[in-house]
């Protein structure tokens, strides 16, 4: 049965084994171990456990360990080169230049052709085209309708003519038969 003294003595076992206790404390442990079979047993078993721990077989890494590691490092280096390139000042300057170019291009476009900005459905240069395609002031809207109806009549006449010529061809075929 362990009492408080036993607990205190057990707390000294590591240093007692390693011979790092003070002379007084060492002598106290010696005396206690000689008198207390329970603590003596614990101390003896502790020694056996520590011996077993030292005897545990040592493990080794596989033969390919270093090769695999170096391959991973090489891959890591390649990644970091790409990362550095991405973050390099040259790349950043190129990015700024492209952004500035785009801003200038958009600005010029707005300055030359402001209509296209207000009406994005219209194609660029719409204002110029509009001017050239403007209907003369003298012609009225009714006149436009008339002219379009004339065009329709003309196209109908052409269709009739082609139907007539088709029927003539049929007649010729029938005659020859």
């Amino acid at each position: 049965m362990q009492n408080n003294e036993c607990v205190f003595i057990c707390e000294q076992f590591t240093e007692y084994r390693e011979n790092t206790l003070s002379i007084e404390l060492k002598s106290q442990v010696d005396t206690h171990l000689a008198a207390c079979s329970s603590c003596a047993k614990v101390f003896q078993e502790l020694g056996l456990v520590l011996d077993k721990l030292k005897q545990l077989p040592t493990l080794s890494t596989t033969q390919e360990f270093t090769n695999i590691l170096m391959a991973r490092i090489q891959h890591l280096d390649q990644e970091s080169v790409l990362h550095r390139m991405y973050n390099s000042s040259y790349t950043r300057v190129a990015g700024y230049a492209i952004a500035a170019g785009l801003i200038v291009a958009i600005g010029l476009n707005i300055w030359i052709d402001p209509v296209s900005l207000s009406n994005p459905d219209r194609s660029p240069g719409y204002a110029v085209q509009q001017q050239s395609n403007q209907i003369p002031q003298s012609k009225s809207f009714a006149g436009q309708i008339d002219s379009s109806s004339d065009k329709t009549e003309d196209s109908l006449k052409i269709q009739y003519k082609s139907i007539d010529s088709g029927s003539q061809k049929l007649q010729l075929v029938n005659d020859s038969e």
Partner: protein
Amino acid sequence: MTQVNLKTDEELIAEFQAGNENAFVELVDRYKDRLINFVYRFLNDMTDAEDLVQETFLKVYKNKHAYREIAKFSTWIYTIAGNLARSELRKRKRRKTYTMSDLSYADNEFTPVDTDKDTEGIVFNSYAGEEILKAIKNLAEPFKTIIILRDIQELSYEDISTILDIPMGTVKSRVNRARLKLQETLSYLRE
């Protein structure tokens, strides 16, 4: 190459910081097995342990300039590996996944045989060794870490204090308590 072997870890990392990749390869050769033994005791899975050690070296490679010669290189690399291992354990707890080694021995009806990895076979061959590994695995995280660092990796109290960022006195008392816990767990082996 013989000359490189004579250099200290701190000299090698300084050379690597200056751009000598061979110095890094030498550090990998020096620490890969030490770290696999350290990390494996946390994860109990050889493949995961190798992946984690690779991650550790990748971190060293990427953050080589973060190392300052105020601490030993060994404590720096153990700190990185230990942090990664603990974070992996936390992830596993969240995922609640169970590997073969997570099963109790009664449930573990067969032992997977991997002819390429004799090391794992050696570890599980001895019943006492098996029981010790199981007992370490079941220790609370701070005790487990301290036992691995002190009794398996055989690091000094000073290095452990730096790695875990705890006072030397705490390291010593924790080592003692962890050993007593192990002894208590394994006492039935001698009954």
